[in-house]
């Protein structure tokens, strides 16, 4: 068994973090310092550790675990996401006092699972990592004190998740039976045409269902708006962003198998198109903010498919870049949702009325987030969508690109309504808790908004990283510095 400790530094750091959280959660409830006091520093450090590990590469554990540019790109993004989620949840009003350490431990375990998922290059490993990432989620979604909807959301997530993973496992067995291997690198050389190997194609489709569930892609998206609505705002921020990254990285790896024109690629493209259309059309009718964001994320899952079916390193790079954009945009919007709902309630669109007056920085940041989600320049959302479109055009799925473009036009309406309520509506609904307008809330929102704008204006460095990650999957190797071998 080849094993290289230095290549695993980000994961090991995260593991340590989670173990410390576990010890704190097992111990006395009044342990000092409280978890919110130290964890942000730990999570921040984890982010920097992940950055330092960007150049690591190597294959280990009998070639089931691969540290490469793609995995490191996603690990950095996930570590950043975890950092923001921890900061976002640090003043969670709907979490029982005694459960704080447990809550963060579960978040940490889930993130660790997702990081393992980023490096897993073998189907069984992928499955195990996926389960590790999922089980913690099943536990934290219902953790919303005094809310009946929370339990319902939890049950929905578990049931849908169980079905999806069962399908994935079933599909895995088909692939093993038909292709006699579960290593992606070996699967790359096999045929995935339905005529030649129907069982494998059915198996892969079923296996992908597990990922689609995480990504909330049509038709596995039904849990998404309900869970967002039922879970607390801060938990929803995690569920809406992090597991999707895990799904995206696996899909990026599996997309190498998918050449344009194959039946399975077409299925993916069709699901992507359905996802965009149903997501956007359903979002048009929503008034609950989190439900709206839920349906919007279904649409975004569809956008990502556009890059994946192109069958080029650029397409996969674009999908990875869009994954990052998606994370930032959603964390930004959820950050504002959590701050505006300072008492932890669910927001209606009307709750945003007059936000520009009460909290100008939050309102401005919300504008940046909403316009990024629409895909208006000069935000990251625009650049992400632009790269997706450019990479996919002329690779056999032009109709999908056109669907994306038309869907962007539909989506304008409901994202604009976020902006409209915050900036142009004056009528403030009855007595509700005022938004949290402190320096912490404003600074967090401002920085995330600045990131969304700045990367939108200067996308080149991150995009080049994503492209090189995409190329590394196709075996196009660039010389990079860093430890490992």
């Amino acid at each position: 068994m080849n094993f290289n400790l230095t290549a695993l530094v980000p994961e090991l750091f995260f593991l340590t973090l989670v173990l410390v959280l576990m010890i704190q959660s097992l111990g006395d409830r009044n342990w000092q310092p409280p978890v919110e006091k130290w964890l942000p520093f730990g999570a921040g450090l984890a982010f920097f550790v992940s950055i330092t590990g960007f150049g690591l590469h190597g294959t280990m554990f009998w070639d089931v675990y691969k540290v490469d540019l793609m995995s490191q790109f996603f690990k950095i993004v996930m570590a950043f996401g975890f950092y923001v989620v921890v900061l976002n949840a640090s003043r969670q009003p709907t979490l029982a006092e005694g459960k704080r350490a447990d809550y963060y431990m579960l978040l940490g375990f889930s993130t660790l699972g997702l990081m393992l998922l980023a490096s897993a290059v073998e189907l069984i490993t992928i499955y195990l990592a996926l389960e590790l990432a999922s089980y913690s989620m099943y536990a934290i979604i219902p953790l919303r004190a005094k809310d009946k909807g929370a339990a319902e959301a939890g049950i929905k997530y578990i049931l849908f998740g169980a079905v999806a993973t069962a399908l994935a496992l079933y599909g895995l067995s088909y692939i093993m039976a038909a292709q006699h291997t579960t290593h992606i690198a070996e699967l790359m050389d096999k045929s995935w045409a339905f005529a030649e190997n129907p069982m494998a194609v059915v198996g892969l489709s079923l296996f992908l269902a597990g990922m689609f569930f995480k990504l909330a892609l049509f038709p596995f998206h039904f849990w998404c708006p309900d869970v967002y609505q039922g879970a607390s705002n801060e938990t929803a921020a995690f569920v809406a962003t992090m597991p999707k990254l895990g799904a995206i990285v696996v899909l990026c790896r599996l997309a190498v198998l998918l050449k344009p024109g194959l039946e399975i690629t077409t299925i993916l493209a069709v699901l992507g198109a359905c996802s965009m259309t149903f997501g956007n059309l359903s979002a048009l009718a929503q008034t609950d903010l989190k439900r709206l964001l839920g349906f919007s994320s279904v649409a975004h899952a569809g956008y990502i498919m556009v890059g994946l079916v192109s069958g080029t390193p650029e397409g996969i790079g674009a999908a990875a870049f869009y994954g990052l954009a998606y994370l930032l945009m959603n964390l930004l919007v959820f950050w504002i949702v959590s701050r505006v709902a300072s008492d932890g309630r669910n927001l209606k669109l009307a709750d945003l009325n007059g936000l520009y007056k009460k909290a100008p920085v939050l309102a401005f940041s919300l504008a940046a987030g909403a316009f990024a989600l629409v895909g208006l320049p000069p935000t990251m959302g625009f650049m992400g969508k632009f790269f997706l479109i450019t990479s996919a055009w002329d690779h056999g799925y032009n109709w999908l690109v056109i669907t994306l473009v038309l869907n962007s036009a539909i989506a304008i309406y409901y994202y604009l309504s976020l902006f409209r309520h915050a900036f142009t509506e004056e009528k403030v609904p009855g007595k509700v808790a005022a938004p949290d307008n402190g320096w912490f809330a404003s600074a967090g929102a401002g920085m995330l908004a600045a990131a969304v704008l700045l990367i939108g204006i200067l996308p080149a460095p991150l995009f080049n990283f994503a492209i090189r990650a995409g190329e590394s999957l196709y075996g196009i190797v660039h010389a990079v510095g860093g430890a490992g071998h």
Partner: protein
Amino acid sequence: MDFGYPVLTILIAFPLIAACGLFFLRAPQVVRYYTMAASLIECLLAIPLINFQLNADFQFVEQIDWVHKWGLQYYLGVDGISILMVLLTIAVLPLCVMCSWTYIGKREKEFHFCLLFMTSAVLGVFCALDLVLFYVFWEAMLIPMYLLIAVWGGDERKYASLKFFLYTLAGSTLLLAAIVAFRITGGTFSIPELMEMNFSFRFQFWAFLAMALAFAIKVPMFPFHTWLPAAHVQAPSAGSVILAAVLLKMGTYGFLRFCLPLTPAASEYFAPMMIAISIVSILYGGAIALGQSDIKKLVAYSSVGHMGFVTLGIFLFNQRGVEGALFQMLNHGIVTGALFMMIGCVYERSHSRDISKNMGLGKYLPAFMFFWGLMALASFGFPGTNGFVGEILVFVGAFQHSTIIGMLCVPGALLAAAYMFRVSLKMAWGKPSTAAGWRDLNAREWVYLTIPAVFVFWIGLAPTPFFKVIDPSVDKLLNDFDKRKVAVVESEQPLQTAAADVLNVLAGKK
């Protein structure tokens, strides 16, 4: 041409930086003076542009890699077509600040932020030589304009702003599709490079349609014009001024910069349709304007007609027509901008835009009526004013092209005279309602009306310097167009080809 420092970047960036400075100010009066100062500095910063050489090259060029992998560049430059638009945009900014001095009663800081932000974005549109950069600026201008209408507009501002936003954004998504298609087919986003390439007719056919829809909505051409009256009527004065003076020009600028040079064969193919739509716009805009009782709506519909002359001039493909179009773009910016500012003046006095509530001004507001009369004359092209120069050129071009087309636009000019005379007569000599107590123009209003008035006479009496600026570029545009429009028409039945193309695209075949 290199001046050692980036003139265009400074022009684009300065308003944006100045806008950020607004966050540190509080008192509304300070905000106004600050923005005024910023807009005047912006005018000073434009002085190096007088080094513009009278040739057809792109000048003041700046070119930096943006996203190398995808060939995106930060690529700016101006030629004879765009420099006038740049100058117009910069000149309109201080006028907008002045005309909203007492008009805007709430959220002054945000209002001026939007004005400055908008100026940056529009300047970017006119300077960009990279398709994606162009698109970025093109879209960025939507947000401040939306806010200008939605926050500071009239009673139906929400409806109007939403309509404006949805219409223009829906149109520009197709523009984005065209941009991507150019990159895939031509291998670059650089506009000057794409201008050198010959695309197949089929490609041009689709690219032209996608771009033309976005531009036609922006112009706006009939039948995509319905957002315009709503937006104009609801927008505050400064918003209407910017909308009329520069925003609508982005559409016609798009036709000149993209459709003619990049898709010449398709432009030629679609020219009859575009000419027909232009003539309908001219006649329809004029006829509807004739029936309005709201002054602002009247001027808004007159814009549809005037812009019809511009698109008509462009699609005549002859020297006079295109020159006339460019002149009309400039004239419409000056004259309609001034008209909207004056509507703001009377609205501040009467709190109504109804013609019947603003009558008898000749006696009580003679100075105002003088300017109004002058702009009204310029608006319908009275000899000696700037409107005449532009309109006569388009007419000459139209008659050169075909007598029938020329004859068809004549009623448009008559309609323009009719509605302008009608409203002016009523405003000047109608039975006074409440005008007796109103004060004539104050010093600030004198300033911001005198400046356009000077241009009305300058362009009207001595247009030669303007010709010198635009002529080389127009020559080059038309020469290139004539050389390359002959490009292969592959099929005798383009509509059948179109149907086949749709099927091919849907099937994922090239």
